[in-house]
């Protein structure tokens, strides 16, 4: 530990976060959601859209929801329908969609023989995911897997084909990781768009076909350059578990996936979000996908210096909840950001303190470090420099994933050369100051050490308070990013359904078992 932090304070924080997470999990285990069930359908191989363009998983789940069937879990009904009608699961979904089949009409009894009707599909799906894990491992062992901080850049043209070109260009310039930013407000869609898309605002729609296209595009540069290029998308919003499922199937490597982001920044209902993040993270865990949490977002509305402790507090909570979905530390890419006002005297020292603190406290996490955005202006030269100082802080403090800042952050989503320039920036700074962090010792009780100690102390106080209040109520007080949310406010509450005694989710069951988690499929079994 470079910062001589008070270990007992860190332990205290973890203890509080653990209690906080346990209380959330009590609720989570009792409910399912429309998107969780749609994810089950997707994992069962249900795909495509109806004539109105509505994805089949939505059509089926909506009908089941209206019929009050969801509390048992969609899998039960799909199994029963397949058995009774002698159809494949996809055919069941298609028939449901054209109203030739009504899941509510299948009688009520649930028996294990029905369940066996889906076990083939479950095994196939889990097998495909495990194959992806193996393929990734094989790539990483055979190809150059990059040196930390890994270089992470975004593409966001709105057109998946242009995205591929831009991603390939970036990968050749040295990017290790490509994230395809989603179209504005996709997170508020309660379905996942279908097929290859070529129109989007500020980003490109996350669809399974788009995942596939980009994966292929990157694999081909990997082959060409001998470096494994990782792919990222957004597992956030009203469809978290579905996107997790799609990512698992298409071998994404990382997913933006935060336990509270949707609540705070997209005004999604918190019961919904906590349930969705639980299952989506389990899928990510199973698929070997690294999650990226979204603490950086706090600092876009709150002050990075004043509210530094909220970032750390959130990291502890994200970690505790991630553990409960079976994510090992090595897949918990906690987020933080370089967002202190550049005008602040010794601001760089405070940034170093914050980044080093994350490293010291979460030594095994693939920390994801986010660039300056808020204080970026149209002055692209200044922007380039700020990004350079950010890169310096990143390499000095041993960050794992460096999301490169764009000099044009205040102007537009990146142009093809913006990304190139950003990569050159990082390569220079990372190389030229590679061992600076190891070569310096922070002066005991100096500015950096004192700053870190103070943030940790504030965090401990905050987490104790949240534990005492309960997270859901504390969120009502606007403790994160100054944004207040209530347990019954926000979008998507209507998609939250209490689990019945008969609730069954074959993937949750299988993954829990394989991840060594106590299964929670059926609350009675707990």
């Amino acid at each position: 530990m470079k910062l001589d932090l008070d270990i007992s304070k860190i332990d205290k924080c973890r203890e509080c976060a653990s209690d906080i997470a346990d209380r959330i999990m009590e609720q989570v285990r009792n409910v399912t959601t429309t998107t969780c069930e749609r994810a089950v359908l997707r994992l069962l191989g249900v795909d495509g859209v109806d004539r109105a363009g509505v994805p089949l998983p939505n059509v089926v789940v909506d009908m089941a929801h209206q019929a009050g069937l969801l509390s048992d879990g969609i899998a039960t009904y799909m199994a029963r329908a397949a058995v009774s009608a002698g159809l494949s699961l996809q055919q069941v979904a298609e028939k449901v969609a054209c109203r030739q089949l009504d899941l509510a009409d299948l009688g009520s009894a649930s028996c294990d023989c029905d369940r066996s009707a889906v076990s083939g599909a479950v095994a196939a799906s889990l097998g495909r995911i495990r194959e992806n894990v193996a393929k990734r491992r094989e790539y990483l062992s055979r190809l150059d897997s990059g040196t930390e901080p890994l270089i992470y850049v975004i593409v966001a043209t709105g057109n998946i084909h242009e995205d591929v070109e831009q991603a390939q260009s970036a990968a050749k310039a040295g990017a290790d990781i490509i994230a395809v930013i989603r179209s504005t407000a996709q997170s508020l869609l309660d379905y996942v768009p279908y097929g290859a898309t070529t129109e989007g605002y500020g980003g490109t729609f996350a669809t399974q076909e788009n995942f596939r296209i980009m994966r292929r595009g990157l694999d081909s540069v990997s082959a060409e350059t001998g470096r494994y290029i990782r792919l990222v998308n957004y597992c956030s919003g009203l469809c978290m578990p579905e996107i997790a499922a799609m990512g698992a199937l298409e071998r994404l490597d990382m997913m933006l996936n935060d336990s509270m982001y949707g609540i705070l920044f997209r005004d999604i209902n918190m019961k919904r979000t906590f349930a969705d993040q639980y299952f989506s993270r389990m899928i990510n865990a199973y698929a070997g996908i690294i999650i990226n949490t979204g603490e950086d977002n706090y600092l876009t509305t709150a002050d990075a210096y004043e509210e530094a402790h909220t970032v750390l507090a959130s990291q502890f909570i994200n970690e505790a909840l991630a553990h409960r979905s079976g994510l090992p530390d090595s897949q918990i890419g906690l987020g933080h950001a370089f967002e202190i006002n550049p005008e602040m005297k010794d601001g760089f020292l405070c940034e170093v303190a914050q980044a080093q603190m994350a490293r010291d406290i979460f030594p095994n996490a693939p920390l994801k470090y986010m660039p300056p955005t808020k204080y970026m202006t149209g002055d692209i030269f200044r922007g380039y420099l700020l990004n350079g100082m950010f890169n310096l802080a990143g390499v000095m403090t041993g960050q794992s994933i460096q999301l490169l800042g764009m000099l044009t952050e205040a102007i537009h989503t990146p142009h093809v050369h913006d990304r190139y320039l950003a990569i050159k920036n990082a390569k220079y700074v990372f190389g030229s100051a590679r061992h600076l962090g190891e070569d310096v010792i922070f002066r005991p009780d100096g500015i950096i050490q004192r700053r870190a100690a103070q943030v940790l102390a504030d965090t401990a106080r905050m987490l104790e308070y949240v534990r005492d209040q309960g997270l859901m109520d504390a969120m009502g007080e606007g403790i994160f990013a100054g944004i207040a949310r209530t347990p019954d406010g926000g979008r998507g509450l209507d998609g939250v359904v209490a689990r019945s005694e008969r609730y069954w989710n074959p993937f949750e069951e299988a993954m829990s078992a394989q991840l060594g988690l106590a299964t929670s499929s059926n609350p009675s079994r707990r």
Partner: protein
Amino acid sequence: MPQVDLKNVRPYGDTLDDGRVQLGFSLPIRYGPEAKEAARQLVIKMGLENVDVVSAHDLGGLFTYFVVYGRCIHSVDVTSLRVPRVQVEQMDFFRINDLVRDKLGRKITVVAACTGSDAHTVGIDAIINMKGYAGEYGLERYPWFRAHNLGAQVPNETLVAKAIDTGADAVLVSQVVTQKNVHIANMTRLVDLLEAEGIRDDVILVAGGPRITHELALELGYDAGFGPGTLPSHVAAYIAQEMIRKEHRTSPDLGEER
């Protein structure tokens, strides 16, 4: 140094009228001498002379990025430029509130929102929220204002309904995301809606955001537009003064007071 000819202002590097301009752009062609020449030709078409491609980078085979310098042959007649500005006398928090109390005698109601798919609330929050921005209080703290901030991604319909509901004097819209001009379409739709509801002339309609200028706002049928660096007092002073101007227009007997 010789005098600048304001009728023919040219870019300045280190000597009057040297016309120096820097450009940066990519072309979707393979890196090489031909690419450099293409960049040079393009810049010549823009009306630059002595064009120097000072750097060219291969962006992975399909694109080349250039930094170019040249001497611009164009000039601008600065004496003929007219830039519309928001008509407002700058005032501080206290003077604005005093003005509203003294000249209007009632609280001003404003409703504000970040509309459409836009979730960038920081800008409108800066103007409205208690805590304000850059050391200034937001409108919520003005005793003579009643401010309703509807937040992010508010449909235009909701905003209009709220305006009718609260009998708003002013409607404030923030639009940040401008990619592919979504903001323009969205802003225009709001004006249409207000007109359809027949209340366009009852409210002061104000837009703001990093790509909003007063000129653009006027074009789109707004009363005023505010860009980057706007402070809460700018907006409050404008609304207060405009309200008073409006009152005077409708009750001409008060005309003398000004």
